[in-house]
């Protein structure tokens, strides 16, 4: 069940796939994202509520054809400069956008997990977003209320990080849960990186468990969420999020950083 990350990415992710790396600030699968970059995946449709540094890196390295998202910034710091360069200048290649709100993305993942064709919400009213995204109006058959329908997210591959797994591959995670459960259940194939393998998953308040049979590969990747964090293991590296602003602002300093810290390294 537990296999090396390089092998898992090679087995599960193909060029052109729809891939969702999730983790709402917490448990963002940076190590897996770096492995996608090292293996040179191309033409990916990247799905993620909050494209974070890892998507800035994937986009800047030319892995993505399209981005499906709801908030694309560096939290508390500012812009994602590689994302902006792709959207504003088409560098290193044009990036198609499918933009939603958080509520719409959450409903789309929940619908995907439930094997429904669309999610429904009281959203996308007024505003200009509805003219630039994939939604439709739907009328409640019972009350006549007008609601928004958002097509379900059904990624080819869902990738998340978690605190730990047991030897059979059952995964346990806690703290801020984001859409970790939904993306694993909505995706055709699921890859989970964990901090460690333990003999027994002792209960933790607020924790959820993803049974091994919902996951295709579990990979051990210590500090695999860094500079995001793993609650109970290490803190969010806020200094790195601030530092990324300068590293990523310029194409050449970005390239040099990726060469040194991603391309010339190997997965755990």
């Amino acid at each position, binding site marked *: 069940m537990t296999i090396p990350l390089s092998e898992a990415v090679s087995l599960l992710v193909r060029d052109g796939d729809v891939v969702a790396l999730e983790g*709402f*600030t*917490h448990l963002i699968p940076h190590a897996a994202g770096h492995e996608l970059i090292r293996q040179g995946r191309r033409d990916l449709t990247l799905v993620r*509520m*909050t494209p974070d540094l890892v998507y800035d890196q994937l986009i800047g390295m030319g892995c993505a054809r399209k981005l499906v*998202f*709801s*908030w*694309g*910034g560096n*939290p*508390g*710091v500012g*812009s*994602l400069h590689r*994302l*902006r360069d792709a*959207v*504003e200048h088409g560098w290193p290649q044009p990036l198609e956008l499918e*933009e939603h*709100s*958080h*509520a719409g993305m*959450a*409903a789309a*993942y*929940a619908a995907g997990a439930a094997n429904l064709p669309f999610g429904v*919400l*009281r*959203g*996308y*009213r*007024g*505003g*200009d*977003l509805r003219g*630039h995204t994939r939604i439709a109006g739907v009328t409640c058959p019972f009350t006549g209320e007008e609601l928004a329908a958002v097509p379900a997210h059904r990624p080819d591959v869902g990738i998340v990080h978690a605190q730990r797994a047991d030897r059979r591959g059952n995964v346990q995670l806690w*703290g*801020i*849960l*984001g*859409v*970790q*459960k*939904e993306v694993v259940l909505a995706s055709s194939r699921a890859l989970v990186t964990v901090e460690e393998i333990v003999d027994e998953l002792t209960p933790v308040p*607020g924790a959820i468990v993803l049974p091994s049979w919902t996951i295709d590969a579990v990979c051990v990747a210590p500090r695999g969420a860094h500079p995001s*964090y793993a*609650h109970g293991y290490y*803190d*969010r590296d*806020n200094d790195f*999020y601030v530092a990324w602003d300068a590293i990523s602002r310029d194409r050449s300093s970005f390239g040099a950083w990726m060469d040194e810290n991603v391309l010339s390294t190997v997965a755990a």
Partner: protein
Amino acid sequence: MSAYTADEMMAVEAARRIDDGTVCFVGIGLPSLAANLARHTHAPGCVLVYESGAIGAKPEALPLSIGDGELAETADTVVSVPEMFGYWLQGGRIDVGFLGAAQIDRHGNLNSTVIGAYDSPAVRLPGGGGAPEIALSVGEVFVMLRHSTRAFVEQLDFTTSLGDDVRVVVTDLGILEPIDGELTLVAVHPGVDADAAREATGWELIVADDLRQTEPPTEAELSALRSLQTRTAA
């Protein structure tokens, strides 16, 4: 009275509008500062909800992101993102939502999506995130935004969220509230006059006949605010 900054005045004035027991949907930056200031002063029972899923968070320092670990550690409960936006926000359980933006118009509509055209933007901003449904689902929207003609515009480049439920806009110059559907200057901060606010507004700003002056921050407010910031810098 000590000297204070314009940002401190904004945070204090926004905090004063949060009552004890108010359930607040809080973003990062100034809103988080204001809500935590209220909790550390006159409204110890206000409930801070962060969109990452932390309900009833009680951080001692201010988070850099809406998902910092301290929010989950100090929360009454942590829920998933679909639950947050479904049961809690759309469920109508949030009294006040704070929003910021790059642009605002006279009706309180906000733009946090693009400057320029959507398909060929001059500046691609982060986007709406939680804002569109926050603006639709909370009881009252509080906006915090520094006053300038770049931000207070006649015509938004993009409407990210609607201004129907905006109850107040707190700026570094004063306070705007909707009167007959149009944001009107109802108060200025000490040392600011109405002309300064007019000059920093990209539309013909209506000024209330009974224009008030906001109370400067008290020693207690400033001291609570600064100790929050000291703990954050530590």
